[in-house]
């Protein structure tokens, strides 16, 4: 058991997901922070327990066994801070994504200005929009009020009005919100975030302070027609999140108090970490998190973060509604084996009813991985318009991100790391040079939360190899016919040896580069190929790190087009799977 070298250094991080609660322990080893172990338990936010505290205590108990250290006293209370006799922990942070998506009504004025911005704000965390009301809404005031009363939202987000602009229409909006809140039973009134024209903030405070349980303010998210400023509002929304959740779920209040306010929505904490990593690497960085109840796609570049949470895309309960967003044929197109549509449909409904279950047969694993590809593909495409663009690729393609982090049990628990990478490549369809990092322990969000009390810890943990480097992927763009050489890649290993590969259009090629080794990679387009920095331009990537798969050239084309003939398609999918190690 490592001992702390720095006073107040050990950290317990709780990650309460919709199906699993994880308790991760960090401490100092040899002068640097390390991830030590993780304990797990099913999340107990839902019936019959209805108290997430029980799952938390169980996960901590599991962790205590692993690390051989008592973290709780005999009454199962966390020992905080650590005691001289070697029990307890110095700091606690928590992230939370469990619970049904928060029912939200958004208000704004113009649909392409404040209404668009407030919807982006809503997509930064686990919210479900149940109504969108703007100045062009055809409904009369009382109809809008009735709509809110029917929906009984947990949260209302108000935007609209540029700074110094007219306030009359905003007052009409506030009237609707005020009337609806007034007419709702006191225990059903929503939390309100005001992020509109600041001239009205005092008026909003006077009208709403005693009316609603939680009232927050943020700077105007659309101070002028040209400027969008979501970041302060996203932060404010993250701080409201535990307050809204504690009205819905037992145990949140206690957890929030124990965490000393360091309880964040998981998506927010992940986003914070992605922005931090983007800032230090000065590269466009991306994270995808495919969970049971939602999918998060976040991207950061130049200090700008785009957070996109999709509660209608997930590998659990949202599966029952997936066919509202895609067809069964599209959901099945990634299946390498012949399975009927009825079986896939049955699978989706069963998984929606039992989101914590896992595939136990090869057929069910194939279905789960096919659905995961389609869900992530849809989420990434929906997020595309919001993601910061490093270098505009061809219209509709993914901008270049490097690195790309991925989390979610479908990737983390896949039988091989090759399967994890192939799912990600099929769904994200990156362009240029990207390093794929698997966040097997769901650490990214935890580190984002930990940064609140310890800025050194995330850097040390990332450098310690707690994440799995899946591979360095080059995705060249070319219009050449299938089988035509489009890229030559030469990898010079750190011992001076060289390997050269010529990638043909439509293929996946792998140059092994094992963990612990490094190499310099020279990429030479053949013909009219864009290997990442423009058509026909060669370049070098020095210091490529060894990884699970090594250097992967995904020359299958962008967008990736699968054969329409089912038998041919299945053969091709099997071939690709075989190439990445089965």
């Amino acid at each position, binding site marked *: 058991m490592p001992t702390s070298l720095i006073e107040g250094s050990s950290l317990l991080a709780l990650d309460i997901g919709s199906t699993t609660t994880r308790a991760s322990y960090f401490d100092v080893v040899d002068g640097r922070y390390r991830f030590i172990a993780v304990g797990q*338990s099913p999340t107990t936010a839902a019936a019959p327990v*209805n108290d997430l505290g029980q799952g938390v205590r169980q996960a901590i108990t599991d962790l205590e066994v692993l690390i051989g250290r008592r973290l709780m006293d005999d009454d199962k209370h966390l020992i905080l801070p650590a005691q001289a006799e070697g029990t307890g922990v110095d700091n606690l942070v928590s992230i939370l994504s469990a619970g049904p998506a928060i029912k939200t009504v958004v208000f704004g004025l113009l649909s392409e200005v404040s209404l668009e911005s407030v919807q982006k704000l809503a997509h930064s965390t686990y919210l479900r929009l149940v109504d969108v009301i703007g100045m062009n809404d055809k409904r009369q005031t009382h109809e809008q009020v009735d709509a809110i009363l029917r929906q009984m939202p947990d949260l209302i987000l108000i935007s609209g009005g540029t700074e110094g602009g007219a306030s009359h229409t905003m007052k009409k909006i506030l009237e609707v919100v005020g009337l609806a809140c007034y007419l709702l*039973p006191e225990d059903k009134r929503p939390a309100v975030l005001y992020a509109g024209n600041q001239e009205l903030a005092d008026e909003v405070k006077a009208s709403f302070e005693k009316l609603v349980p939680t009232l927050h303010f943020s700077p105007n998210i659309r101070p002028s027609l040209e400027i969008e400023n979501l970041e302060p509002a996203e932060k404010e929304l993250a701080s409201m999140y535990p307050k809204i959740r504690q009205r819905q779920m037992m145990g949140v209040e206690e957890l929030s108090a124990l965490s000393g306010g360091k309880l964040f929505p998981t998506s927010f904490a992940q986003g914070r970490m992605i922005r931090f990593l983007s800032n230090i690497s000065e590269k466009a960085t991306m994270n995808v998190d495919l969970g049971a109840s939602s999918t998060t796609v976040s991207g950061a570049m130049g200090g700008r973060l785009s957070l996109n949470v999709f509660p209608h895309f997930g590998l659990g309960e949202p599966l029952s509604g997936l066919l509202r967003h895609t067809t069964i044929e599209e959901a099945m197109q990634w299946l390498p084996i012949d399975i009927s549509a009825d079986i896939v449909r049955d699978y989706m*409904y069963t998984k929606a009813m039992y989101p914590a279950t*896992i595939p*136990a*047969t090869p057929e*069910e*694993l194939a279905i789960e991985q096919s659905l995961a590809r389609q869900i992530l593909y849809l989420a990434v495409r929906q997020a595309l318009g919001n993601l910061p663009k490093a270098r505009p690729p061809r219209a509709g393609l993914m901008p270049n991100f490097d690195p790309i982090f991925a989390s979610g049990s479908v990737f983390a*628990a896949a039988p091989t790391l090759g399967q994890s990478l192939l799912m990600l490549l099929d769904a994200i369809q990156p362009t240029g040079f990207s390093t794929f990092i698997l966040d097997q322990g769901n650490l990214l969000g935890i580190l984002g939360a930990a940064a609140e009390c310890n800025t050194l810890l995330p850097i040390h943990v990332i450098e310690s190899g707690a994440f799995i480097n899946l591979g360095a992927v080059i995705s060249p763009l070319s219009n050449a016919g299938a089988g035509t050489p489009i890229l030559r890649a030469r990898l010079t290993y750190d011992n001076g040896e060289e390997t050269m590969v010529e990638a043909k259009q439509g293929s996946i090629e792998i140059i092994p580069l094992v963990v612990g080794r490094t190499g310099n990679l020279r990429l030479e387009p053949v013909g009219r190929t864009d290997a990442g920095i423009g058509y026909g331009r060669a370049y070098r990537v020095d210091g490529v790190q060894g990884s699970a798969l090594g250097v992967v050239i995904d020359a299958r084309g962008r967008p990736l087009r699968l054969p329409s003939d089912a038998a041919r398609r299945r053969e091709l999918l099997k071939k690709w799977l075989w190439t990445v190690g089965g």
Partner: protein
Amino acid sequence: MLAPVTHIIPLTTIIRTRMLPTAGTIQVRSGDKVAPADVVAETTIAREHILIDVAHALGVPPAKADRLIKCSRGDKLAKNAVIARSDGIIPRSVKTPREGRVVAIGGGQLMLEVGETPFELRAGYPGIVAQIIENRGIVIQTTGALVQGIWGNGRMEYGLMINLAEQPNHVLQPADVDVSLRGSIILAGHVGDEKVFRNATDLPIRGMILGSMAPSLVPLAMQMKYPILVIEGLGRRNMNMAAHKLLTTNEKREVAVNAEPFDRYAGTRPEVVIPLPVAQEPPLPRDLEAFAPGLIVRLLRNPRQGAVGTLEVVRSVPVILPNGIKAMCADVRLESNEQLVVPLVNLEVLG
């Protein structure tokens, strides 16, 4: 590890809360005996509001309009009742467009709640009123068999259960729904044809307890006026042996079908209650279990989805499944005597 529990119990004590959607009047007292059709509480629900801009109608400033409004919050007004009248030689008046109740006044406007309809809360189960929740509802206690399902269309009914599912793999055909079933609650296997629901509406019947249902029928099932409760899930699958045995041995008994939707967070689940007389109060169902040898479990996923067996061993180290996934598992002996290694997360305890 904590295990999810589904109740399939031949005899237990059942305690259920019945709540009004809004505050209202409770019609029973603690200790009263109630039948399923008894009205235990009442309220009124208004689904619409009308905002009347008095200031605009009278052409006066809002503050003055507030002074001219003659009614107060809470007043019930008939249609065409005068809300406000202006001063002057030719006074103008503002009248109610519909009958309603004043719920808000201010800023020269008045909001009227209209379309009030009475709501009656029925007991739903036969039993004793164990507790009164002031203005909101009651707690009923009863004894009998309890079978929990997985999907429901939100309706509730009580009636005689007629069994058509001789085997767990039974499929209910439209022609099977004949006049002999009028007014009954049908126990059947799988439904894959929408005509089954339409024929049942024409009779009519009081409810359906099904093993499974085609996913495509969900929208239609939601429209049916009678409760539809699914035991196993959506898609073609057999009713589990434990539920099948318990339900079929109780055929031709009065049963309460509460087909409320399964909501993990609200803790609601569709269920069938078969009231049974007892000499001594049986124990309450156990809502929490930890996986342990001897428990009766159901497999939630393939292989053998829906099969019931006995948990023999909880493995202490993860097992690699045939598909390569590593998971904590248990050895389960099925009723057919087949032994399987099953991930713990794919099991639920029956009991």
